[in-house]
């Protein structure tokens, strides 16, 4: 899951980055609005966390600009002032949720997961496709109600595919979204992981290989 953090306070930014990485996110950090705009334009994210009080380009303007450029990823606004006016302005500018500082990391994680889920069209924190259940809050996968042991990476691949169903996801997109930028992009590694994942979630067979393009996760409705 690739995400963008735009926060001018170095301490909080680093803390967010460390925590979010530990939760399996690939995190890009920006320390001001302009840098945030650059990242937002260049990369595609599952979710962004944007502080409202930013230097150079303030949070509201950044969100409005991103939305004006058709960047549709969900945005969670962090506000230190906590006034309703700020929250409303943030949401009116195009944000999807707000969180007032100081916040608990658990609360932030819950909100981010909910936003990602919402964007993918799932209402519950447990993503269900046939016999396959993926609990985004517990990071747990069940097949026909039996728990399946997945590595952190396998889990992330499956989660990403389930959150982007019925769409061809290329290997490059997967590495982009699941690794930090400096990762060595060897497509063979992905293929190996994918083979292992398929075996683990069998008999569920919803991941299809689209030759030369990538993978597609089939929903019940699709196919």
């Amino acid at each position, binding site marked *: 899951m690739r995400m963008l953090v735009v926060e001018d*306070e170095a*301490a*909080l930014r680093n*803390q967010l980055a460390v*925590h979010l990485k530990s939760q399996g996110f690939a995190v890009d950090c920006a320390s001001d609005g302009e840098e945030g705009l650059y990242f937002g334009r260049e990369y595609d994210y599952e979710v962004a966390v944007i502080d409202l*009080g930013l230097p150079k380009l303030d949070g509201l303007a950044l969100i409005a600009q991103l939305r004006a450029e058709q960047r549709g990823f969900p945005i969670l606004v962090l506000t*230190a*002032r*906590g*006034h*309703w*006016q700020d*929250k*409303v302005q943030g*949401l*009116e500018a195009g*944000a*999807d*949720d*707000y969180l007032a*500082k*100081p*916040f*608990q*990391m658990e609360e932030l994680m819950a909100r981010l997961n*909910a936003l990602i*889920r*919402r964007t993918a069209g799932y*209402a519950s924190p447990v993503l269900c496709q046939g016999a396959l259940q993926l609990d985004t809050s517990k990071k747990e996968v069940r097949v026909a109600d039996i728990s399946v042991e997945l590595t952190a990476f396998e889990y992330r691949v499956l989660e990403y595919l389930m959150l982007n169903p019925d769409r061809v996801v290329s290997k490059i997109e997967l590495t982009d979204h699941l690794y930090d930028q400096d990762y060595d992009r060897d497509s063979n590694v992905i293929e190996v992981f994918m083979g292992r994942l398929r075996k683990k979630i069998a008999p569920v067979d919803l991941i299809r290989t689209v030759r030369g393009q990538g993978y597609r996760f089939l929903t019940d409705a699709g196919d």
Partner: protein
Amino acid sequence: MKHSIQARLLLTTTFVLVVFLTLTAGALDRAFRASVVAGAEEQLRLVIYSLMGSVQQEAGQLTFSQGISEPRLTQPDSGLYAQVANDLGSVVWLSPSALTTDVNFPRGYSAPGLFEFSEIDALIPRFQLSYTVIWEGVDAEYVVFSAVTDQRPYRVAIAEFRRSLGLGLGVAMLLFILVQFLALRWGLKPLRMMAAEVHELEMGRRESLSQRYPKELLGLALNLDHFIVHEQRTRARYRYALDDLAHSLKTPLAVVRNSLSDSSENSLLVSEQLERMETTVLHQLSKASAGGPVMGGKTIVLRTVIERLLRALQTAYVDRGVHVERQLPADLVIRGDERDIMEIVGNLLENAFKYSRGAVRVEVSSVEGGALKAQIVVEDDGPGIPRALRDEVVRRGKRLDEIEAGQGIGLAVVVELVALYNGSLDISDSRLLGGAKLTVLLP
């Protein structure tokens, strides 16, 4: 009455005017009466002189040539009478006018050579004048000439004069008072204008006073304007400073809190204290930066504010699928700081969204009579608010950091803001939806 400058001035001038005009009327009346009496005396004196002129002396007796110049003396009961008598008491001559009338001529004689004038206040009031001369060569040497005239025509003249005097002065007084009233109204018009403008300012219908004041008030108007602008600026600056303070405290608090990852006893303690610091910062600073009722504050259309909040909340709580029933008249406005109002309604609505199972109802209505003008009702179909917490929340002075987290925090903010506006908050059970019902009344 005692609070009106115009009434005070009018009362004073009317009082002075009445006293002055009464004194004037008295003086004029006395002067006129004196001149009337003097005129009567003069007439009587002329009668006596003409009598003396027509006296002839024959063999120790006084006789009269009959050609008396004053016709009223010859006409019976004419009101003017004359008599010549001697000191022996016998009447030498009586004017024909007195023949049919009972006239009390003065008896005896007075000091010779002096006119003696007096007023008789009998059934028929009269003026009388007598003059005693020593006529040498007649039997009775002291001869008394008397003339009497009826007072009534003079009294009629005096009464006539009094009436027209009263009428004239009365009209003059009314005219004076009217002019005074108009002059006062005109003179005090700028004050009334200022009062009206200050009222408009209060109602938020204008932002500053106009500069159309006379020079005595212009300074006051300008200073008032300066004061208001200064007050607004100070308030804004104060608020920004507090916001910045909150902002710069909250971020480090968040950092410290999030760095406490282990669950040792020590970090639990720190985390507990952090929590207290957070709520204090959150609460005290938001309380201090609340605007409250502002002079020159804008009018706020409640519907606009609520619609904005609802759109925002529908975005943030989109997966709740909350259906909101709304009763929001477009013309209901209240005065105050938009941010405060947003804070009040925002917290109420967010709680409703948070706790509802899918139905929220918001109704705004105006309240007739009394100081509280607008009623905002927010209801939901959630679990409701426990009675114990209701009292705790609504009781004024309950500090936020003493209240359990959850619904309490938002509501405590509402309670304080509502109190700041002299409004009221009531918590009850929603009969329509079965959850909580919060009713806020604002002036």
